[in-house]
């Protein structure tokens, strides 16, 4: 060894090359080991959240809410306190903290320090659920005053199925409005920019939900106002609107009648809200999950919960798969079906969702046999931390995370989830994102040039209930 080292001294270039090579090998080795670690952490998250949305008879201390799946057994949890502590930041960051608490609440882990922190998250989610319902009621009243009937998607529309109001984190209020009413609706909600606590994600019809949007939503709204109404968009709206269902907004309070908002007697969340039918909702959740790279476990819990609440075992014939796959060309409908089956398969394999009723459907094969790369990729996402600092690192790390997420890459280019290599999809996604590069560079330069002092960062955060909720208000894509 020494002799080799001495020999290299006579060839400085060779020595430097060898040293660089060994550094690269070391880094690759560390990279591989990190990916394995992330997958292992992701696996623990998956174990903790298995069936976390269920209200098992043994663990329940409240009656199930309307629509939530009943009688499902929650598997025994084999997680040590140290392992729970390890995944605690991941749970808090991804919005799965309350679901984690629900799962451990009747186990010895509930009394651990990590359990205490998860309990705090749950308490916070409970209160934010009440505030969120108030916000929805207020925003709906603004739109209805203009004669606009919106459809609420994701968020509360799926949260109402959980056995407890505090299990799911709330982000924006996703509302879809008729395409030819979009300009009017966005004008009606303009006042919310000056009112604390309301964050509405307004969608022009249904066709663009779940697609990646530019970060500047005001710019997007201005652009959408100018866009000519497409007849196809109108047709899609009419079709989905006709199938939509109306549910009472205060539904979640039925099981806990003591819960109430006492601030303004007139502002108690009452009335009704229009949501998508189950078939359309399942498609929307599946597409949204994959387009977002399956990064957050609660989104897959949503799918698991919806699938179980549909109760395929006894109602398989009632479910309209032809509606679920959506309209459009055969190619689009088949792709949708592939994505929906993939998502249900993920919910089954990673979170133990009961899919027994799907055995006789056209999706059975796909649900049972997922592409070999898919589960490790999702677990790796769940086990990875995201950079929180408001610096240029955010842009750089988001660039890497895009490359690092084959699920997102496949969905971004409308690919099929199969066993083929993912490299072409990753490259294609980067190419499709090239037009964004100049704007990202500008924002990168801006971050370096105009970095506000910490006090300004704090004051820039939303006031009112939103400020209190900011820590876990999730950034929706």
């Amino acid at each position, binding site marked *: 060894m020494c002799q080799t080292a001495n020999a290299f001294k006579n060839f400085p270039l060779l020595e430097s090359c060898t040293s660089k090579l060994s550094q690269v090998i070391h880094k690759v080795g560390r990279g591989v080991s990190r990916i394995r670690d992330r997958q292992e952490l992701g696996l623990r998250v998956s174990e903790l959240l298995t069936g976390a949305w269920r209200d098992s008879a043994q663990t329940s201390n409240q009656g199930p809410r309307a629509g939530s799946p009943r009688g499902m057994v929650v598997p025994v949890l084999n997680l040590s306190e140290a392992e729970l502590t390890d995944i*605690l930041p991941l749970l808090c960051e991804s919005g799965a903290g309350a679901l984690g608490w629900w799962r451990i609440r009747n186990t010895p882990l509930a009394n651990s320090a990590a359990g205490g922190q998860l309990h705090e998250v749950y*308490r916070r989610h409970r209160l934010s659920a009440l505030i969120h319902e108030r916000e929805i009621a207020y925003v709906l009243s603004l739109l209805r005053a203009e004669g606009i009937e919106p459809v609420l998607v994701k968020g509360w529309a799926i949260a109402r199925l959980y056995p407890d109001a505090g299990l799911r984190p709330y982000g924006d209020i996703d509302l879809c409005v008729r395409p030819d009413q979009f300009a009017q609706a966005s004008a009606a909600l303009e006042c919310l920019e000056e009112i604390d606590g309301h964050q509405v994600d307004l969608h022009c019809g249904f066709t663009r939900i779940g697609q990646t949007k530019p970060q500047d939503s005001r710019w997007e709204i201005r652009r959408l106002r100018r866009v000519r109404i497409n007849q196809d968009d109108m047709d899609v709206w009419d079709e989905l609107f006709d199938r939509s269902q109306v549910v009472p907004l205060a539904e979640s309070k039925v099981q806990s009648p003591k819960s109430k908002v006492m601030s303004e007697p007139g502002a108690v969340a009452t009335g009704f809200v229009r949501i998508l039918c189950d078939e359309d909702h399942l498609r929307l959740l599946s597409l949204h999950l994959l387009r977002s790279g399956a990064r957050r476990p609660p989104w897959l819990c949503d799918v698991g919960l919806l699938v179980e609440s549909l109760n395929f075992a006894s109602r398989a014939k009632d479910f309209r798969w032809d509606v679920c796959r959506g309209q459009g060309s055969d190619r689009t409908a088949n792709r949708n079906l592939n994505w929906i089956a993939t998502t249900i398969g993920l919910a089954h394999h990673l979170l133990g969702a009961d899919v027994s009723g799907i055995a006789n459907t056209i999706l059975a094969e796909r649900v049972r046999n997922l592409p070999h790369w898919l589960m490790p990729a999702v677990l790796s996402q769940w086990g990875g931390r995201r950079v929180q600092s408001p610096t240029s690192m955010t842009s750089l790390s988001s660039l890497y995370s895009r490359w690092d997420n084959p699920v997102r890459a496949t969905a971004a280019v409308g690919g099929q989830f199969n066993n083929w290599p993912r490299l072409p999809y990753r490259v294609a996604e980067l190419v499709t994102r090239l037009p964004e590069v100049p704007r990202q560079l500008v924002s990168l330069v801006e971050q370096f040039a105009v970095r506000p002092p910490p006090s300004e960062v704090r004051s820039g955060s939303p006031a009112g209930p939103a400020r209190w909720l900011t820590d876990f208000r999730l950034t929706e894509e």
Partner: protein
Amino acid sequence: MERITREHFPRMRKRGLVIDDVPDEVLVYDLDRQTAHCLNRTAALVWRSCDGKTSAPEIARRLKGALDAPCNEELVWMALDQLDRLHLLEQSGSVPAQFSRLSRRQLIRNFGLAAAVALPVVTSIVAPTAVQAATCQPSGNPCVPSKLCCSPLGCDVPNGKCF
């Protein structure tokens, strides 16, 4: 000693609050101050009894029946003191001076350990952010003696970072 008057008949605040009953505790969000609190069963029972007509001894009697544990007036005043300081009562300063700032230790000393189970506790809810929740150092963070690297990570000694 301050005389207990009609002003000392506490009344719970109702406006500007979001209240949620969960098993064994009550969650309260103060819309005016943007703070959230968690009331344990004893504190919640005391708070719910504050209708502006019921005196502390009467609340203590009710509490004794509900909790099946030794309760007295001091315990009720202790709860009221906490509720008052968190602006959950209508009239601020409605707790007589002799009962304000009663400590738990003092109460347990006076009434024995049996009183500990019935102690009123009002805590502020602060959900941990991901960074706060990290009791161990994730990958890439420096190894420090106070925080171990999260398992199965180890400390890369030359770089001084967990990997």
